[in-house]
């Protein structure tokens, strides 16, 4: 569904990604993990269009999208739940959700999707008239995810969904991500909380210093000695 072919991305003179290659198949959950500053967010920004690679290709359903404008990619079915949530804090919860359904496709099924989102997160319906900036951290993450769903995406990208959340809330959010996936949405997520990501994802890629250094089945990675030492601490799984 998504094929990343040797993309190179830079911020001015500073190159952040070097020949990054990976793919996400339909209905899969794929995790991209790695330390701070490895290029995880840069990768997601390149897929969503906030950044453009200077070399390499990004193919979505066989179409090259690497140079396409952001809003065109949303129309094609790529949606990003951004780092730090990126809500519209001065607008109400409902307005945030409505904006999620800005595309023609999202708008035509707005009421129906809204019901689904309220089904996933009942608290959002209770808070719908409230300004998004007044929500708690967990509620804000729920709103960001709900907003991402409103465009009816085929591919949903998550940038650190557990960021700033308690372990318990992270678990709740990850369960919902699993549910979203079972409803047919393909998922690519990046995460610093490696364990929770690997427990949900089927496959994972490891990125270090802007290069993909390892890939494989999540379960194998959880048992991998090197990985456990590097990312999971020494405790047993």
């Amino acid at each position, binding site marked *: 569904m998504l094929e990343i072919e040797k993309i190179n991305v830079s911020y001015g003179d500073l190159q952040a990604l070097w020949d990054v290659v990976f793919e996400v198949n339909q209905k899969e959950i794929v995790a991209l993990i790695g330390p701070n500053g490895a290029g995880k967010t840069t990768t997601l920004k390149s897929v969503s269009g906030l950044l453009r690679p200077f070399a390499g290709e990004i193919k979505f359903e066989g179409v090259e999208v690497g140079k396409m404008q952001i809003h065109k990619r949303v129309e094609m079915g790529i949606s990003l739940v951004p780092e730090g949530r990126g809500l519209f804090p*001065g607008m109400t919860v409902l307005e945030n959700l409505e*904006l999620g359904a800005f595309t023609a496709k999202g708008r035509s099924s707005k009421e129906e999707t809204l019901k689904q989102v309220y089904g996933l997160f009942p608290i959002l319906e209770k808070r719908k008239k409230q300004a998004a900036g007044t929500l708690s951290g967990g509620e804000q993450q729920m709103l960001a995810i709900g907003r991402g769903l409103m*465009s009816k995406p085929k591919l949903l990208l998550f940038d650190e969904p557990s960021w700033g959340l308690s372990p318990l809330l992270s678990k709740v959010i990850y369960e919902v991500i699993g549910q979203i996936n079972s409803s047919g949405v393909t998922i690519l997520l990046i995460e610093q909380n490696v364990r929770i990501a690997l427990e949900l994802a089927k496959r994972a890629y490891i990125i270090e210093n802007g290069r993909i250094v390892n890939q494989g089945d999540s379960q194998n990675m959880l048992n991998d000695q090197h990985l456990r030492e590097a990312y999971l601490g020494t405790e047993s799984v």
Partner: protein
Amino acid sequence: MSWQVFAQSLLFGIFVGGLYGLAAVGLSLVFGVMKMLNVAHGELLMLGGYATFWFFSLYHIDPFLSLLPSAFILFVIGMGLYKGLFSPLSKLHEEVKIKNSLLIGFGLSLIFHNLAIRLWTADERSVSVIYSGWGFSLFGLRFPFIRFSGLVLATIVILALHQFLTKTYFGKAIRATTENWESAALMGINIEKTSMISFGFGAALAAMAGTIVSVGYAIHPAMGLEWTLKALIVVVLAGLGNIGGAFFAGVLLGAVESVSTLFVGPYMEVVGLVIFLLVLELKPQGLFGKSIA
């Protein structure tokens, strides 16, 4: 001084303040969406005033009727200016963007100012309709018909803008872009198109203010800078990008200036600037602004 003199000054101040507000709302809208400061905003107001003046002089169209065609002309001019001059800046970093937008704005204001002198001479002009002298008195206060309807009109325009921004999908897209353009783009909003139309709206709002100025007051080619400054003061008073607050801040500035004339005479402009500096010093997020974390 009798209370009547005071109240009359206050009233006239509120009338002109409504126009400050209208001018400032356009500037604020553009700044909010694009994070660019269009210092040629006053010149757009001047052009709007001239459009109305010529509609009246050449075709005898009532200024309150030519308000919309004048606004439409400036809407188109505004979109053209955005596309040709400001759009290339949109990819730059915020600080560089605002600096470059200032330079372009200053250049534009010089061009429009001189073009207006060249085309229409430096004469002061004003639209004098049959009802120019009409008015009514209430509680011993004089309500000139044109200035009063100017304020009513400005209020209606602001209310309509408010409805548009809060009730329509496109209006919400404008507010979303103002709050966080990256997230707005991720919602599928076309930022380039939204910016272009917002710039057009900003110019159209300036034209409406210019229309009312051409009837209730007077227009001339050099008026632009003065109005840009008023609008800037009002925008800062209200808080950058705060569209609703800009109208109230405009009325406030008009009222304060007018009343202070009674005490300091021709130095009334200084009073406005002193308030401006005090607000910057004490409440930099603006009177109606939320503090920026």
